[in-house]
């Protein structure tokens, strides 16, 4: 009964164009942010921060970036891990080579380099479509991994090819404790989510979706496929690059190309599809699902005090994970975001079925 838009008349188009036209949604979001920014830092234990929340936020950001490319512009990419890697290593180089460069600038710099690489590997999309493109993007994946292993300049000539950062700080505030790290990531993620939302509901977003849905018609309306596709690659890989930098700097602290392997790319694609193609919120759902599920699964035996062989537990995790993936794809091919909105619809007209 509480969830209603009755009596909320939109007198101007501006009001109508808000991201959350319904009052209750706005309140909900406000509460969510309140919890995320205030309650969680006060209550959550360290493990939750380090092992779940921080990875969740960073990967959600990456998924958000990928969603712009796959969900909004319809260009499948299996090279996301590579773009994350570019972001991470570029940011690293900015940091070690430019004395006293602020962290935020290093991260954004990482994002920019990822953008360049992303656009470069996006060019084939002007000719190659669908699964062919998907597999073609693997070229980016493997080439980039190789480059960071082989070209020692990228790793500042570390003998092992593994790089590490420390002493992070923003505007004089250190980013050391899990709470600080969490809040830093959260802030960045929220900002990017808002920016991304604005993009996808604006002119460029419409161009992306037009290309996705019917590229011939789009070009007839005057949309240039080249601009639309490459801008999608650019925006997407920028966000992904920043996420990669965060993954290296904030989450791992020390990393090697293996941290951005092809498994990562698949993992992110999972998030986008399970969460919901073409939905900002879906990226978060997907990330939560893919990050939390395996951890919950292989922690479960200990929580319920069932002594279970580690290997078996790991295999069961694999099996349950795979099954759930398939299950969700069958139940709702359009992802959790769709389930969510259906739920809201039902709630809106509750208790009347129609």
């Amino acid at each position, binding site marked *: 009964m509480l969830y209603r838009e009755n009596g909320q008349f939109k007198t101007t188009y501006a009001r109508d164009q808000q991201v959350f036209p319904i009052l209750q949604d706005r309140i909900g979001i406000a509460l969510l942010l309140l919890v995320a920014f205030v309650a*969680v830092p006060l209550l959550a234990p360290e493990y939750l921060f380090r092992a779940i929340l921080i990875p969740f936020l960073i990967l959600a950001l990456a998924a958000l970036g990928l969603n712009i490319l796959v969900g909004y512009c319809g260009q499948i990419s299996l090279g996301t891990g590579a773009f994350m890697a570019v972001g991470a290593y570029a940011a690293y180089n900015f940091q070690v080579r430019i004395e006293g460069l602020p962290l935020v600038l290093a991260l954004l710099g990482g994002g920019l380099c990822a953008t360049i690489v992303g656009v470069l590997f996006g060019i084939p999309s002007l000719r190659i479509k669908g699964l062919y493109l998907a597999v073609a993007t693997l070229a980016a994946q493997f080439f980039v991994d190789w480059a960071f292993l082989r070209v020692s300049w990228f790793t500042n000539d570390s003998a092992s090819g593994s790089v590490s950062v420390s002493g992070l700080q923003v505007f004089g505030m250190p980013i050391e404790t899990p709470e600080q790290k969490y809040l830093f990531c959260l802030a960045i993620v929220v900002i990017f989510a808002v920016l991304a939302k604005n993009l996808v509901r604006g002119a460029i977003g419409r161009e992306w979706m037009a290309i996705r849905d019917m590229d011939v018609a789009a070009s007839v309306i005057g949309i240039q496929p080249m601009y639309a596709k490459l801008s999608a690659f650019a925006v997407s890989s920028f966000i992904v690059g920043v996420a990669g930098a965060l993954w290296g700097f904030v989450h791992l602290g020390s990393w090697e190309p293996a941290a951005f392997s092809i498994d990562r790319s698949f993992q992110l694609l999972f998030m986008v599809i399970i969460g919901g193609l073409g939905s900002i919120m879906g990226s978060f759902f997907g990330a939560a699902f893919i990050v939390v599920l395996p951890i919950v699964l292989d922690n479960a035996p200990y929580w319920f005090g069932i002594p279970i062989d580690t290997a078996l537990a790991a295999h069961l995790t694999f099996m349950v994970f795979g099954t759930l993936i398939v299950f969700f794809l069958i139940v709702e091919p359009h992802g959790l975001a769709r389930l969510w909105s259906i739920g809201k619809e039902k709630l809106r007209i509750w208790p009347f079925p129609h």
Partner: protein
Amino acid sequence: MKLKFLPVAAALAAAVISTAAFAQAKEQFFPVLVYRTGAYAPNGVPWANGYVDYLKLVNAQGGINGVKITYEECETGYATDKGVECYERLKGKGGGATVFQPLSTGITFALTEKAPGDKIPLITAGYGRSESQDGLVFKWNFPLLGTYWVAADVLVQHVGKREGGLDKLKGKKIALVYHDSPYGKEPIPLLQERAKMHGFELITIPVAHPGIEQKAAWLQIRQSRPDYVFLWGWGVMNSTALKEAIATGYPREKMYGVWWAGAEPDVKDVGDGAKGYNALALQHGAGIAKVHQDILKLVHDKGQGTGPRDEVGQVLYTRGVISAMLAVEGVRRAQERFGRGKIMNGDQVRWGFENLALDQKKLDALGFAGVMRPVSTSCADHMGAAYARIQTWDGTKWNFSSDWYEADSQIIKPMVKSAAEKYAAEKKLTRRTPEDCQS
């Protein structure tokens, strides 16, 4: 979704913490990072079994001066981010983790950044980052028994001896076939150093994870005809390398593996083809010593064996046992200073590892006679020993085929120092003072 998961996860995590909180007073908690699944499981499993079996043995013998050991396994799958998650999951349990041993160079790198903050030592017996031997910079890392620079150095010494003197290496070709990862790259600086000294040519041939695609690598070897091949592999890469060596007709006698490429899983299913293949032994080899008999008697016979019985005494199993023993002895040593029969925290255990004095007598008492040599660490030297032997596969088992070599500290020390300095500079660390060493 997020909202739904937060409370759930929070509750569960809380549950974990609380169980940890009222964990029985007199128990020392050992987290066990393992990989029993994935591409590297065949090598990860025996190590893990040995590690856990030894912990069980210690408990069966009454614990560490009466302090019982608790432990929990966490599956890393040899993946860095899973490793980090495991670390975070276990570090707070059982009243605080004693020591971590990730058995993965990648994970070691990641944990090296986290351990100091949590004051938990890392043992990386026979792996990890070579410069972490320098305890004045790497306060929490303990590459006990040897690093990859030690391994590479010993291998060069051995082939030099085989040629009749290091000077005879001039103009020779040595190919390094390595796992394309931090692990495989570690030895390269030292080999380059040695190559400069003795004037042999070093050919480096990377093999991509997981190492099942080596045809090209071995075609290169067949064409460049190196006098020796050093194999820096792990998991399926090792057996594949041997098979390709057979397929391209490279003599196994001229192949030398690092001590992670010298165990039963690497040669078993190659069988006779691997005859003559050599590998380093990280001090110990295969075979049943007193400690193994104890494990069989007090653990396996009680039906508490972790793995199959015939695995006891295998190379990687024994390495697991030794790793566990080192961890336990660190605690014992710490108790000598901070109170017998007490539970040691990470900082105290670190002191223990820093002041290990495992002489032959102690080792014999522990049942490690003939398995390994004495280890004694110091604040400055976190390695404690730099000895290794060569072992050779005769088609059915490993036999020692050389006596002990000690790595040449003349060469390694300066490399460690400069590398450690570089790290300290990057991290803006100051070297530890003598006072700090007392702590």
